[in-house]
């Protein structure tokens, strides 16, 4: 059981301000995902929680105790690195037992713990192998095993799936979800730039941009009620369309956001529809994307299945009512009237 509380946390390298006034309350047993574009500070934030980066100002509390100055090994955390950071010259057994050995545990209990974890992760047959003799997925499991064996209250994951190929990534993602269910009391903080991982794994997502927290919320909250233009554009694929000018003014806002899946495309004129010419279409099989050049810029629409609309055609686009997002001049969300 461990909750993590970040208050006004700042981090800078010389003149470069990496993290700006981060406030965050992570509940015990929660699965939190940090997402954001590269360079947004999400990894730095994770490494600050871990203790690998010193905090410039603000406080970091784990379980109510301020741990700003506490070295990583004393914070009760475990970290799974992007590269897994397996010690290449040590066997799987030694890799998993290294932390226990440093805690000064006796041989017998180390052995017992390592074997238990190995069994749980189906690593028992590989305990004597070196990391280079393992497959990508097995290495990933060893890295997780190293975290589990320490009985840490908090798990930190730094983009753990980015080194796996697409198929394995889906499988491992599900394994992590399963792991979380098996360890309901363990708080997990997970960094990724992949929104699919974020949406599928997280209890709550933290969206970061340029060192600031843009929004914190459950995956569906972020999808349905993005707090600002950035979050609205970052979550969802293809990206949300943003329209300014007449249609936005008609809706009483500065910027109108419509997701591609919430656009009706019609070959015949629609009342209040936005007219445009189809620039090109992409047919993916399960769905199709239609790119339409309008007076308000390029707008993307998503159609189910195979679209009948073809390139060069004149079309009208109309948002499905109730699914538009309105933003003010500062990009902040305006609640639906």
């Amino acid at each position, binding site marked *: 059981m461990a909750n993590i509380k970040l208050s006004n946390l700042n981090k800078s390298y010389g003149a470069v301000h990496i993290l700006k006034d981060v406030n965050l309350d992570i509940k015990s047993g929660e699965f939190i995902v940090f997402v954001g574009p590269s360079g947004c500070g999400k990894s730095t934030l994770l490494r600050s929680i871990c203790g690998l980066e010193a905090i410039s100002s603000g406080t970091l509390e784990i379980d109510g105790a301020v741990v700003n100055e506490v070295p990583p*090994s004393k914070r009760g955390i475990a970290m799974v690195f992007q590269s897994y*950071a397996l010690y*290449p010259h040590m066997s799987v057994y030694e890799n998993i037992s*290294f932390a226990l050995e440093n805690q000064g545990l006796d041989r017998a209990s180390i052995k017992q713990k390592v074997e238990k974890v190995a069994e749980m992760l189906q690593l028992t047959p590989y305990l004597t192998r070196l990391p280079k003799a393992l497959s990508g997925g097995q290495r990933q499991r060893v890295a997780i095993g190293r975290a589990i064996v320490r009985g840490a209250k908090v798990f930190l994951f730094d983009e753990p799936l980015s080194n796996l190929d697409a198929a394995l990534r889906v499988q491992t993602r599900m394994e992590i979800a399963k792991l979380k269910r098996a360890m309901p009391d363990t708080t997990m903080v997970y960094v990724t730039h992949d929104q699919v991982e974020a949406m599928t794994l997280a209890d709550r997502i933290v969206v970061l941009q340029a060192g600031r927290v843009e929004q914190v919320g459950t995956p569906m909250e972020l999808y349905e009620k993005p707090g600002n233009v950035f979050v609205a554009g970052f979550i969802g694929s293809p990206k949300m369309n943003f329209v300014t000018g007449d249609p936005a003014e008609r809706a009483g806002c500065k910027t109108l956001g419509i997701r591609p899946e919430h656009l009706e495309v019609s070959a015949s004129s629609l009342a209040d529809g936005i007219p445009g010419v189809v620039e090109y279409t992409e047919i993916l099989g399960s769905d199709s994307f239609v790119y339409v050049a309008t007076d308000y810029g390029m707008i993307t629409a998503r159609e189910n299945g195979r679209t009948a609309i073809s390139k060069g055609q004149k079309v009208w686009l109309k948002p499905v009512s109730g699914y538009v997002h309105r933003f003010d001049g500062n990009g902040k969300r305006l609640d639906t009237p």
Partner: protein
Amino acid sequence: MWQRIRLEPSRFFLHLAVLLIVAAWTLPTAGLLVSSLRDKDLIATSGWWTALTTTERSEQARMKPPADQVQKDGHSEISGNLFEGTDHAGQISAFGTRVQNPAEFSAGATAQLQDGRSLTVNSDGSYVYTSPTAFTGDRGQRVFFVTSVPPKFTTDNYRTVLFSEGIGRSFINSLTVTIPATIIPILIAAFAAYALAWMKLPARGFIIAVIVGLLVVPLQMSLIPLLKIYNATGFLSKTYLGIWLAHTGFGLPFAIYLLRSYIAGLPKDLIESAQVDGANDFKIFMRIILPLSFPALASFAIFQFLWVWNDLLVAIVFLGSGNDQLVLTGRLNALLGSRGGNWEILTASAFVTIIVPLVVFFSLQRYFVRGLLAGSVKGG
């Protein structure tokens, strides 16, 4: 990638050119090795490249004095063997009685000389000298002859230098100097390199800059001040400890530079992971850094070993030139002075001094080359 470029006038010419260069580079060493195995008289009289051929050599000897003559069939006769009393044997191909023409008669023939005397010399050196009148005088007649000496190799030279010229003793001295002077700087430099690569340290950049600067300081600069310190302390002067520390000091800039660039290139995640795992820096160093840096450590070890083994200057300044202190290079230098013309001693001694580096070099060439590349291409 070269094959595709039509740079070659002809393959033959290319092979020939490389062959010539390689020959030019290996012949001097080959000459030394071949000579060190030859008989000492042969080294001084014929080129080493003739070692495999039978050489002709003009020699002379005296026959037995007239006192040994016997009377036979009304003649006076002296008989014996020209090689008697000498240790070498050979095949006599021709002989003569005048220095101007040592090959006047072929072996086995009977030479008719003045006063009715005749001389027969066989190829095995036996001779019969007859005269119608009695021989007079008290010294034997001189005979000149040409022997053909078959190729002959020997390890005598090595036996001589190892046991009576002090090379054996120096060999042990060299090892005593070299082994610690290789291991100590590796340890010290590896710890320092880790500190400079990964630990939080004030003035780290400055220390690294100083070390890079020290890379090129000629060690001649250090000799006088160090000698003063050594003489003042006493326990360092002319001792092994003194020379180990000297070699360590001189080798450190390169060692730290080489090892730091290697250790700094190890994945950051590994070290951080070990930190999260609760290992302190000493443990990280011993368990993670040291095993993973093996290639760099090996490279430097070879460098330092060769450098210390081959060094002359530091050894003669800091270890002195006493008989039981001379290292191999110093001994060889001394022999060059005292035995300048004795090629059998010089060549064998030189070969003893270079054999260890050559073995090290050939067995560990891979690491050596890697170290060279790491140390130089990156800017040292």
